[in-house]
């Protein structure tokens, strides 16, 4: 399921900031007056942000976008019959707390949201790098957890199946906008910096005694 659509009014890739601004002004011509005024108020600031981004939004591999080291993953799946109930019961057993995902080592956050009267699942995560290189590892290291979660989904082939990557990728939707506070910091790097910070504090405590 791919839902990103390119309308004829979307600026072509590679168009200049001026062209994009002109396009935006054209589209805002029909916008409510408050929207038009707001756009003019911030256009100056926006132009400089666009001209000098801290990081560029890049592809996160097959699907998804990445800022620095951190990628977004957004997926919408139809539930299999009974799947929503099973998944909710499993998540409730954990009291909705997915702290066990810590052992994957590359996940910044993760959420499961049930949509449209429990007929669809929205799954979102922010993670380091690309996800599909590690699918083989998940299939041998944590296959049961993935199959418990994903057997709730219509058509899930099983994590050990060679089709698993294609199945997941076909349900992924690119985010149109993406923000990360520290695009250079992976989960591993954050953990390391916390350790370095604690050691530095200990050192400073000692020299200041």
């Amino acid at each position, binding site marked *: 399921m791919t839902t990103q659509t390119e309308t004829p009014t979307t600026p072509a890739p590679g168009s200049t900031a001026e062209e994009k601004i002109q396009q935006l002004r054209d589209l805002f011509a029909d916008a409510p007056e408050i929207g038009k005024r707001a756009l003019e108020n911030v256009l100056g600031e926006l132009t400089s942000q666009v001209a000098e981004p801290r990081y560029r939004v890049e592809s996160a591999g097959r699907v998804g976008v990445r800022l620095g*080291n951190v990628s977004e993953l957004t997926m919408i799946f139809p539930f299999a019959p009974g799947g929503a109930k099973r998944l909710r019961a499993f998540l409730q057993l954990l009291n909705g707390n997915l702290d066990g995902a810590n*052992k*994957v*080592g*590359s996940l910044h956050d993760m959420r499961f949201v049930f949509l449209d009267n429990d007929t669809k699942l929205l799954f979102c995560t922010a993670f*380091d*790098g*690309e996800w599909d*290189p*590690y699918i*083989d*590892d*998940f*299939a*041998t*290291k*944590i*296959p049961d957890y993935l199959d418990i979660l994903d057997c709730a989904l219509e058509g899930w082939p099983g*994590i*050990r*199946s*060679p089709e698993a990557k294609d199945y997941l990728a076909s349900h992924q939707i690119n985010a149109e906008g993406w923000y990360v506070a520290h695009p250079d910091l*992976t*989960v*591993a*790097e954050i*953990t*390391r910096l916390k350790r370095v910070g604690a050691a530095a504090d200990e050192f400073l405590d000692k020299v200041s005694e």
Partner: protein
Amino acid sequence: MQLVDRLGELPRSPVTIELDDIQATVLRYRPEPYYGTHVMLHVDDARAGREFVRRLTPHVDSAAGWWGAGQAWTSIAISYSGLVALGLPQDSLDSFPEAFRVGMAERADRLRDHGLNDPRNWEHPFGTGQIHIGVSVFSDSEDTWRDALQTARQQYEGFAGVTVLMTQDFGAQPGDLNPLGYKDSIGQPAIEGCGVDSLPGQGRPIKAGEFILGYPGEAGVPLPMPRPDALGRNGTYAGLRKYQSRVATFNRFLREHAETEPERELLAAKLVGRWRSGAPLTLAPVDDDPALGADPHRNNDFTYAADPHGRQVPLGSHMRRMNPRDTTMAQLADVNVHRIIRRSTTYGAPYDPAATSERDDEVARGLYFIFLSAKAMATLEFLQQEWVNNGNFMNLGDERDPNIGLQEEGATFTIPRKPVRRRIHGIETFNVLRGGEYFFMPSLSALRWIANSGER
């Protein structure tokens, strides 16, 4: 020398894979000493190409009794454009994975082959799609190598429809050392059902399906395989990467960052995880132990249990990156699904410890690195992205593999020490990629199937 002669009594286990149908190169270890030649061929005419495959196949050795085999052997592998040129049925062609079909050069982004390693800088004919068939001869003596090569040559020389694009001799290096002066190709994965149990330090045998098509892999199911089974089963994929070794850049790095000869040798060992003799730093942390390096019973027999922080073998060293063994990694990973069989072959001038000039960097000298796996393309992409050109999995940020990584301006290499680590700034790219290809290495019965495929 045969593996049994090198190791004496081998730990045997039952054979559960069809060794007599699998090509010898898949299981036979590189001989000691080793001599050989890689020949790259172009198929001008499908019928002639198939006839060449038919003529060569009886001279391609199987892996039967591989542990005791000592004579020269010949292998054959075919690229995707080669399979097309040989006129394979479209349904078969379509059944190969995408990365194989488009070829290594086309996957440069996924492989992080940028800058110096960019396919635009590769040597002809790599990356052009012109390489259709690779024939390799391996041997443990100069005479048997020449005989086997002569036999292979008779099948294509003066044979209209098949053209030789390049011929590259390899091996015959003093002490079998690689172009940077190290003993190499020490640790290989143990493979279940191949007839030999794990050698000391190899870890548990890995499911055969990770290396040979048609058998269950580590996840318990066979990996996807080309159609029909007669073509795919007992075959595997081979990747080839041609590296030019910048020996002078490497020597200057050692001189700039270590003052005395022993310090330089220790630094050289820290980059790789082994002394040049092959002795691992886990077992010889302070001084080289050439006897240990030369002893195949002991030189790979270790874990990292007593070295979790990398004070012996740095977390970022080449050996530890390529096979982290029992290292606790920052990201969930299964070391057994990213292993490759390596048949590394050194070509050109031997390592020269006195080389320091820019000209020395371009003296023809390097590696034809060959790796085999039932998912060679996916594994190479994983390794290049995650374990070679990245350091995150070992808590090393952006640091890269000191041996085969592509280093960026100001790159660092961390050597864990007590009380504080040493971080070396300005490590450079020591091995530059100059070419690469993916090949399918069919079983012997699949070679006959290919030879006959025009008749269907």
